[in-house]
């Protein structure tokens, strides 16, 4: 089968060539194709169950009393809204944590970080990919090298510095950022992976566009704002989602840097339910409420997300 090595010909095409050769081969190929499709569907169903059932369990359990959650474990009832169903866990959640406050904090922290992250990281990537300057490669290398340093390693030095930094606010200059919103936002705006994603995408946009804009009298900022960014929708969507998820899930850093209850994000709130007599139903209710925004956003942006990962992730 010399065609097997021909670039650009996929398995379907080969099957089609084989199909026209002889009727016997045709039948065999069709069977194999059918089996492969069936297996593919089975694998997809299995993956859906693996990823979907925990969410179903969480949501269904959020309506059950604690004892029933445990008695239903080990059988199909765990995934079905049967038995003593009520909204009691949800009312318990609102009585136990200042949920609206936590939610608002998370929204503020996440939205501000995502938006400022898109601006700052895209500008950094633009400078590296489009302007080009001496040592730009080294700068990019150093930025990428920071990807291998886990946050846990940086947490304590960052905490120390956050405690020493000055801040200009309504009360004038104050020392120390701990127990503030800015300490939950500013350290996470600049992000090496976001810069890398933007860099990859910007690098693939034809440079001739810059030349043409320059001829028309545009400066670098104008090129960034009016040409490169409007063409980078998928990269912006990817960076937005990849920044949103870890910011929404922030746990360790707020634990260390924030003491006031009125500044805590939603993820820290889940600890409120882990007492000696844990309220599992309330944990499930709380988890359902805080997962909902993430699911909604993912569903809304999934096409852009998949497209951009597929295009920018594979390039280079």
């Amino acid at each position: 089968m010399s065609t097997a090595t021909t670039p650009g010909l996929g398995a379907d095409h080969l099957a089609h060539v084989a199909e026209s050769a002889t009727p016997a081969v045709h039948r065999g190929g069709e069977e194999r194709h059918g089996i492969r499709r069936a297996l593919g569907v089975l694998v997809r169903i299995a993956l859906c169950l693996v990823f979907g059932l925990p969410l179903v369990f969480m949501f269904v359990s959020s309506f059950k009393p604690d004892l029933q959650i445990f008695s239903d474990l080990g059988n199909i009832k765990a995934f079905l809204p049967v038995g003593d169903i009520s909204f009691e866990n949800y009312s318990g959640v609102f009585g136990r944590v200042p949920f609206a406050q936590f939610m608002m904090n998370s929204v503020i922290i996440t939205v501000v970080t995502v938006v400022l992250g898109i601006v700052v990281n895209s500008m950094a990537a633009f400078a590296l990919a489009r302007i080009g300057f001496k040592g730009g490669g080294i700068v990019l290398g150093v930025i990428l090298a920071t990807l291998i340093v886990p946050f846990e390693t940086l947490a304590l030095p960052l905490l120390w510095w956050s405690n020493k930094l000055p801040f200009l606010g309504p009360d004038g200059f104050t020392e120390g950022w701990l127990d503030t919103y800015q300490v939950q936002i500013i350290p996470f705006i600049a992000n090496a992976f976001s810069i890398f994603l933007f860099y990859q995408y910007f690098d693939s946009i034809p440079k001739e566009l810059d030349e043409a804009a320059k001829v028309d009298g545009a400066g670098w900022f104008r090129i960034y704002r009016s040409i490169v960014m409007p063409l980078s929708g998928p990269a912006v969507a990817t960076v937005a989602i990849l920044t949103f998820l870890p910011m929404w899930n922030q746990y360790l850093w707020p634990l260390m840097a924030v003491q006031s209850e009125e500044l805590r994000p939603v993820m820290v709130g889940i600890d409120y339910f882990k007492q000696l007599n844990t309220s599992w139903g309330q944990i499930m209710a709380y988890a359902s409420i805080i997962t909902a925004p993430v699911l909604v956003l993912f569903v809304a942006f999934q096409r852009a997300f998949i497209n951009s990962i597929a295009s920018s992730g594979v390039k280079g």
Partner: protein
Amino acid sequence: MKLTSTTTRVAVGLLAVALPLSMAACTKGGSSSSSGGAGGGELTMWTHNAGNKGELAAITQIVNDYNKSQSKYKVKIQAFPQDSYNQSVVAAAASKKLPCILDIDGPNVPNWAWAGYLAPLEGLDGTLSKFLPSVLGKYDGKTYSYGYYDVALVMVTRKTILDKYGIRVPTVDQPWTKDEFTAALKKLKASGDFQNPLDIATSFTGEWWPYAYSPMLQSFGGDLINRNDYKSAEGALNGPKAVEWAKWFRGLVTDGLVPLKSGADPAKDFINGKTAILYNGTWTAVDTRKAFGKDTLFLPPPDLGNGPKIGGGSWQWGISQNCSDQAGALDYMKFAAQDKYVASVARDTNNIPATDAAAAEVKGYEQGGENQLFLEYAKKFAVLRPVTPGYPFIATEFTKTAQDILNGADPKQALDQAVKNIDANQKSNGYFQ
């Protein structure tokens, strides 16, 4: 160019949203960054009780009473969730932002005192002499903390279960012997009526492992460290008695008497009838009594050779070294140590009151009350976890070793390795002198 203008508008719109939000955010945050100190007579207090309505309400009542009782100081509460409280305190200590008054898990007191987080409670000796020894946090001859309550470890079961299988009900004076205990568990297993003859809550994490299982080691005659000088664990944690404990501990799993990994909530499994005997804390009393009423039994732990043992020491209160108004913090601590407050916190948390006078005020702990046996267990069987700043390391090492043993590691080798690591840590810290 439609795309260009639309995208530009979206980008400008997003920025317009983000910048005011960030300004508002920074402004709000910036104004609330003050830490515990004496500024304006305000004393900041941290507690691990966020989400724990009962205990937080009791503490809030004490604080409100104190604030009303005088005008010089005002105590302000900041509640943290228990699961992440220690990390928050350690992070605050690293940035010198500890509050004036804070609560501490008992076994951590020596470490936090040694690390300079805590200041001794000077001048409160008379006030604290009435407290159970297990609720006082001491280090280097000084008292650093006191607690309102203690908890006890118990074997929770039902009288009908023991009667059905002809198992003797043990008492404080006549607890089960090791052989009796093993025979009872085997009988329960043979019945096939229970998924777990005994559930020792192996799914719990953190401090539970040394709190719950080191008393079993001590009941065999071993210990976490030699308590004469707290320098080495040699012989205590890897001697013949400790190895005997490790083999027995592993045997509970291999004989099918205890699940290798308990369910997420062993008390719920007990109430649902999956478990015959539950090894847990007295905090399960409310739920189990609610389910089984007077049929519920809270038995002493078995005597595994060296007498029954349970862990001692729970959450306690102290003042921080960097509190700029130590006198104010001490004034609050003295006020809050009154018997009526010991009683109210113990009542609201369903725990063992730390003083006899408070016990007399709490229903169930009065003479002949249904909870009095918990107090008796605490007085007779409680063993404090090692009073050394090295305890957090010892606890981590013991937890890892006990988990390895349950999972099939060679008992002697695992214990030897733990001793080696603990001794190295004690030595590298100059034995915390």
